[in-house]
């Protein structure tokens, strides 16, 4: 191994990539998309607003008035809490003309012609079965519907209380609700709110995830590029294949780190109030990220990236075009993406079998174990085993990739089969390649 030669490869890889327009466009656009995404989320979940014209079919005849009053109250309360933003309900009673079905059909037409946003059916026979029906062109307005549901229930509660002859103001007391605020217990004894931690952890998770996926893939593309450009043999006359491979992986990894550095500098300087509010604690004003989380992040970042970069390198080496490699490149991608399938188990049942498997299996452990160590305290042996397995398989796969790479980069011509590629691994070191299939051109 020659450090100087590896360094030369790293430098080329890094400078050429950081110089591209694609790098800067990506660096600029991804935070914009991310912010826009959060913005949309915040806007749609907390700031539900606008008018809702709703017809109320009150079969009982007693519920409409209290409901209208209750909703108006809720509206003004929400307005006070959230800076003047709330759904504005415009209710209109609708008597049942003819039978109920005919009324509903008439209302349906009105919804379709957009005269009204929806209609609520308060039918005592259904209320008996704890059912209220709300018909609308849009049934996914979670916040607005939640408000409506609470209002109707409050009215029904009041009615039941009065029926039993209890004081009417008991209802608001009975409706009081305590929020569960989770605090995380850490070794340092400090506690912090789960919501804040989850947000930070998710940002780190997304960084890990995109690094494995995007920068892993970049390794594959880089290898194929060198083959299609027919440059690789020129280079390995000066640099050993292993040196070239390591240089490329490190160089591309550094490009990723540069991107994250730029993002964190932007984030620190522009600290968007919304995010700062969630991330910071009132006392310090700086994000509370535990040292242990940062250490785990670095560990899982480095080994996870090396593992996936090696896999992608090995996948790229035998092929001559991106298309040929595409099929195989789905395999690592599948494992990276699978973390979202494991996500519910990891969050809700972090000590269950699925979570333990995901956080020990080396292809998912960088993401899964990072999540578990950040959200709780998995048993020490699991963390240790996960790290040992990850490091061992990174070394093993890097070794295998090195062998496939050595042979593959000189293979031109026909697409090799998987058994052929497997055979390359067994060649003795330096014993590498076959003739380029095109030697006899």
């Amino acid at each position, binding site marked *: 191994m020659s450090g100087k030669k590896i360094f030369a490869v790293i430098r080329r890889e890094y400078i050429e990539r950081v110089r591209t327009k694609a790098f800067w466009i990506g660096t600029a656009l991804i935070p914009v998309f991310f912010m826009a995404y959060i913005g949309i989320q915040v806007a749609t979940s907390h700031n539900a607003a606008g008018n809702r014209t709703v017809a109320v079919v009150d079969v009982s005849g007693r519920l409409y008035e209290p409901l209208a009053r209750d909703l108006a109250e809720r509206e003004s309360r929400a307005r006070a809490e959230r800076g003047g933003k709330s759904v504005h309900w415009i209710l209109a009673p609708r008597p049942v003309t003819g039978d109920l079905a005919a009324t509903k059909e008439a209302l349906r037409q009105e919804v379709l012609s957009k005269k009204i946003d929806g209609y609520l059916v308060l039918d005592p026979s259904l209320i008996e079965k704890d059912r209220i029906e709300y018909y609308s062109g849009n049934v996914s307005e979670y916040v607005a519907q939640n408000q409506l549901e609470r209002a109707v229930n409050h009215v029904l509660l009041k009615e039941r209380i009065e029926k039993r002859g209890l004081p009417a103001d008991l209802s608001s007391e009975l409706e009081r609700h305590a929020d569960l605020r989770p605090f995380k217990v850490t070794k340092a004894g400090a506690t912090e709110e789960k919501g804040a931690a989850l947000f930070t952890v998710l940002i780190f998770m997304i960084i890990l995830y995109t690094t494995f996926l995007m920068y892993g893939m970049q390794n594959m593309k880089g290898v194929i590029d060198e083959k299609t450009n027919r*440059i690789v043999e*020129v*280079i390995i*006359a000066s640099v050993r294949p292993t040196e070239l491979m390591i240089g490329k992986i490190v160089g591309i990894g550094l490009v990723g780190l540069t991107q994250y550095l730029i993002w964190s500098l932007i984030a620190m300087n522009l600290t968007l109030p919304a995010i700062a509010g969630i991330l910071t604690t009132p006392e310090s004003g700086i994000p509370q990220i535990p040292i242990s989380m940062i250490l785990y992040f670095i560990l899982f970042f480095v080994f996870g990236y090396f593992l996936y970069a090696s896999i992608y390198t090995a996948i790229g080496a035998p092929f001559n075009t991106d298309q040929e490699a595409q099929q195989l490149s789905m395999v690592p991608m599948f494992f990276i993406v699978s973390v979202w399938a494991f996500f519910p188990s990891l969050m809700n049942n972090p000590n269950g079998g699925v979570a333990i498997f995901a956080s020990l299996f080396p292809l998912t452990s960088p993401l899964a174990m990072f999540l578990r160590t950040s959200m709780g305290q998995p048993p020490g042996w699991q963390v240790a085993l996960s790290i040992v397995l990850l490091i061992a398989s990174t070394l093993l796969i890097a070794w295998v990739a090195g062998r496939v790479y050595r042979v593959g980069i*000189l293979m031109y011509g026909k697409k090799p089969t998987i058994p052929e590629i497997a055979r390359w691994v067994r060649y003795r070191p330096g*014993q590498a390649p*076959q003739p380029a299939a095109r030697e006899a051109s």
Partner: protein
Amino acid sequence: MDSAVELQDVSKSFGKFRAVDGLSFRVPKGVVFGLLGPNGAGKTTTIRMIMNITAPDSGQILVLGRPLDRETQNRIGYLPEERGLYRKMKVMDHLMFLADIKSVDRRTARQRIGEWLDKMELRPWLRKKVDELSKGMQQKVQFIATIVHDPEILILDEVFSGLDPINAALVKEYLIDFRKRGKTILFSTHVLEQAEKLCDEICLMSKSKKILEGNLKDLKLRHAGDELRLAIQATPAEVAALPGVHRSSAANGEFVISLAPGTDRRDFLRRALERHDIRAFSQREPELEEIYLAAVREAGLEETRTIE
């Protein structure tokens, strides 16, 4: 004389296919050495083994007297058959990178690259991307990349294939120049005419084996037949009537004559001089291709592949 490259009984198989079979040859320092043979003879595999890109199954390869190591690797300029460039890199950056991995310090590299870019009239293109260069210019860049570290040995695989005629002439000129400066050049080609004009020494390969090796002049002398070249003041009929002439043909004001078996060359010349005026007389040198075909026949290897 010291050897620049030496192969001792080198073999290499790929699966069941024997690409190189017991090959030995020696490239003395300071010569132009041609590794010749048709496509598929094993030339590229041989060169890759010399470059340590492929390891031999058996046998030994010495470069400058020892097995190839990092230090000697830096003293070789290698142009593979499959050669290319990073398409998105700027010419100067590209050449600097290739010098870098040959461990040339950056100042020397910059200066040397500048000189070569001037020589090859590429100076205006130095900040352009490889992509924007014509094919011919890219070939020039590749050639500069091969020699940027001022190597002692040049190893060129099918160097002329794909070169346009102007660049081919240019490269030929530089190769001759290199030899004048005491450098060693080993190149492979399947085009025998090119080798004939450039080589001091050759090794002929066919079907993974060496069939002939040696100094080209010696080989030509050794394989010279009994044909003579005669510039003579006579009609074809007169020439045919000379004693000892077995067959004669006229070409470009000369005659190519083969003598009847047992005829002494000096006798024939003496008698011819008595009758006619002779301006020039020489033994006809065999073409490399004739030597090659004769060697193939001798080695008992039926040559099925065509030679261009």
